């Protein structure tokens, strides 16, 4: 394997700051931080509820610079991407973004992410987990260049009903015509600003990508533009709320990345994560295809379900039972949803349970003033997102 293109000296520092750290640190009144891969990021700045409200009611800004990014280029870039992921990458045209996942040969999901088709034969793959090892291992026989560029691209998620208006005020002419999962560049302060209409909130929103040297200038201009539109920096806690409401899964939470699993049966296939639509068997080859074909024949072991849970208690790490009180699964993500006005959860249950209309129960333990109680809450299987506003997809986007 050739040496990495860029020698890095990150190991001198235990934790890195993101290119926006000077601004996020100044705003972080709670001084709440956690580590996302190599970087420190804010859990919350001032009040999680208010930050959540910014996502749903005005404009929220989230520093997603630590997102793992790889640039994949070369004559075989498309062929390579198509062998890597389960969906047909040929359908993601230049200027488009596609959600995807990739599996090992047992058909178990390693990670999910987004493919940015920047230009002909140039793809950026974004994922939560580090993937260089897997990407390099998959490279044999393909004429592609693979560069880890996590630290070379700064990213901000700008999400919420006024996000389009904010970006318009920032000077991104025509931003309202950018369709969901589309990608476009604008000149910005002497550099290039790439904007994709993507996000992890299930709302109208964008992700902004820029050279880290211009990161602070972007932040300042953005907050200036958003002053009249309720702009607010948000941490991961508020983002987490919106992603559960949107029904999105997260690696390490709703599924265990297959390359990290030690025990059998701990991993999940795309079908078992309710992402069968991302598996395209019309492609003659991709890693995991044979195993997934066999699974389609044989049937899956698990099903990911979205549950609307009776009552107002959060079904934290709750066992799920069938109508005969047999243990059939567990919740993996859970919250009280302000938007749905319900206790909601993502859960993994054994097949065949989890069909709409199935009678399921969540075993919830909760305490009031140190006294613990148990509650068997009836669950309703919900199809699709818990919260799915029309503005999320509307084009031209809401820009006032």
């Amino acid at each position, binding site marked *: 394997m050739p040496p990495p293109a860029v020698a890095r000296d990150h190991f001198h520092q235990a934790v890195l700051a993101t290119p926006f750290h000077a601004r996020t640190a100044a705003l972080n009144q709670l001084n709440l931080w956690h580590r996302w891969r190599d970087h420190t990021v804010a859990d919350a700045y001032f009040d999680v509820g208010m930050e959540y409200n910014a996502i749903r009611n005005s404009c929220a800004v989230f520093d997603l610079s630590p997102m793992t990014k790889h640039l994949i280029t070369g004559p*075989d870039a498309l062929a390579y991407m198509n*062998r890597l992921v389960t969906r047909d990458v040929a359908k993601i045209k230049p200027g488009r973004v596609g959600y995807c996942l990739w599996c090992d040969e047992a058909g178990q999901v390693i990670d999910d992410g987004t493919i940015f088709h920047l230009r002909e034969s140039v793809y950026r793959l974004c994922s939560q987990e580090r993937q260089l090892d897997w990407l390099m291992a998959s490279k*044999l026989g393909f004429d592609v260049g693979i560069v880890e560029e996590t630290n070379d691209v700064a990213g901000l998620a700008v999400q919420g009903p006024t996000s389009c208006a904010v970006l318009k005020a920032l000077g991104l002419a025509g931003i309202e015509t950018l369709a969901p999962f589309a990608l476009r560049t604008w000149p910005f302060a002497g550099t290039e600003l790439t904007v994709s209409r993507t996000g992890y909130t299930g709302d109208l929103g964008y992700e902004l990508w820029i050279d880290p040297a211009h990161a602070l200038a972007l932040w300042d201009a953005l907050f200036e533009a958003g002053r009249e539109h309720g702009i607010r920096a948000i941490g991961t806690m508020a983002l987490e709320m919106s992603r559960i409401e949107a029904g999105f899964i997260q690696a390490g939470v709703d599924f265990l990345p297959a390359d990290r699993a030690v025990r059998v049966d701990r991993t999940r296939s795309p079908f078992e994560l309710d992402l069968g639509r991302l598996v395209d068997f019309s492609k*003659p080859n991709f890693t995991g295809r044979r195993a997934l074909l066999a699974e389609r024949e044989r049937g899956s072991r698990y099903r990911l379900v979205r549950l609307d849970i009776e009552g107002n208690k959060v079904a934290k790490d709750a066992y799920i039972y069938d109508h005969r009180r047999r243990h059939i699964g567990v919740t993996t993500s859970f919250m009280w949803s302000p938007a749905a006005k319900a206790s909601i959860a993502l859960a993994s249950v054994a097949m065949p349970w989890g069909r709409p209309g199935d009678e399921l129960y969540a075993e919830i333990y909760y305490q009031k003033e140190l006294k613990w109680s148990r509650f068997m809450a009836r669950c309703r299987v919900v199809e699709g997102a818990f919260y799915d506003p029309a503005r999320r997809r509307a084009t031209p986007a809401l820009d006032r």
Partner: protein
Amino acid sequence: MTEPGPIVIIGAGHNGLACAAYLARAGRQVRVLEAADQVGGAAVTRAFAPGFKVSAVAHLLMQLDPAIERELRLSSHGLALARSGLATVALASERAPLVLRGGEVLAGDLPQADRAALPGFHATLRKFAGFIARQHGRVPPRLAFDSWRRALPAAAVGFDLRRLGQRDMREFLRIATLNIHDVLEDNFEDPLLKAALAIDGVLGARLGPRSGNSVYNALYRLSGGGASALPRGGMGSVSAALAAAARAAGARIECGTEVREILVREGRACGVVTAAGAEIPAACVVSNADPRTSLLRLLGARHLEAEFARRVQHVRSAGYAAKLHLALGALPQFRGLEPSRLGERLVIAPSLDYIEQAFNPAKYGEFSPQPLLEVTIPSIHDADLAPAGRHVLSAIVQYAPYELRGGWEARRAEFQAAIMAVLERHAPGIGALVQHAELLTPVDIEREFRIGGGHWHHGELALDQFMMLRPVPGAAQYQTPVPGLYLCGAGCHPGGGVMGSAGRNAARVILEEH
């Protein structure tokens, strides 16, 4: 779901030819495409100097599958032996040579204890080798027991193992993974005897006597019964007989047709493209090439899943053995050796430490300054190989690492001089008899015989690369992950050596599906 067209076999090595013969006998239309201008692959007789011919890679026939000999009636297709039951002569410069045939000592000085222990030791190894031999003719079992039918082959292997009896099964399991040095030290005293027996554990492999898997290699070599023979006309006559059997059954064999690529449509192997650019459609494609060449070069990793491609890439298949051919003006004289024994299998390695020390530099990308040799002079038994009164000497020389520091082009002469110095010590004056010499390094073997890495066995014979692990899980039953593409070469179970079982087993699998 058979497509129209013939079954195309890439490569007319002996396994490809055996496979072709069985498929054609079963009524299938078969086309064998061979890049070289004669059949045989590495089981070939070819001229290396005017009037001098030699078995170019494999030079002793030890393991040819008797079922193939019988079923394909190879003797009626011209296979004959110039000499069988060769003895092994262990040469040493300061003492009389030791002459062994199986467990029998024909000549030489040995301590009484060694003389007494040898027959029993040999019989035990033969018994264990017999267990290995019984697996040769079988398609390796699968480890995924999703049905009773699929679990049966594994049960059969277990049954065979149990049939050794409790005491022998335990001993087999004990020594199978050991190194041959330790096993020999446990049983014998005489250094020359131990070295002579150890050679079988390391020949053709990237192993020294102290390396794990060397006992397995020795058992593997013994699995043909332990007797070595010289086919009349050299090793090429085995291939010629197989080719004749295949042709007689209706197979078409085309030499000088190199395959550049295996064609895949909608995930299925459906033909090949020749180096000349011709597309040849096929009902299915069978590759006799080594696994890496077949799957990564001719097919291409893009048609495989990532982990599978990576496993193929990591098959240990770098050759460590070279081949020396000498055209001699007259028979050489080896020190202390009666001229009547000159036609036996001569080995040069006086002690276990000599072999280990020869191996040491190879670990670091250097050739052995004092290599070990397995020498035959086949022209003694087969006059057609050399002009009257003159002779050919064929020697396997170790160790010659495929990846040599400085590269083989620059250092070939240096290695050849080192080999000649060893020969000269045991056969003074041999250098003066040499009229022509040819040294085939692993790099030459790779180039001439199209074996990636130049490993005769298309991959190390080792417990982690045998049976259902050979060449890699997912292709160990001759099928590959790509429907319509099969492997039939030495890279598959049971492995290398001129045996033919891989081709025969592969044909059985292919016939079930086509």
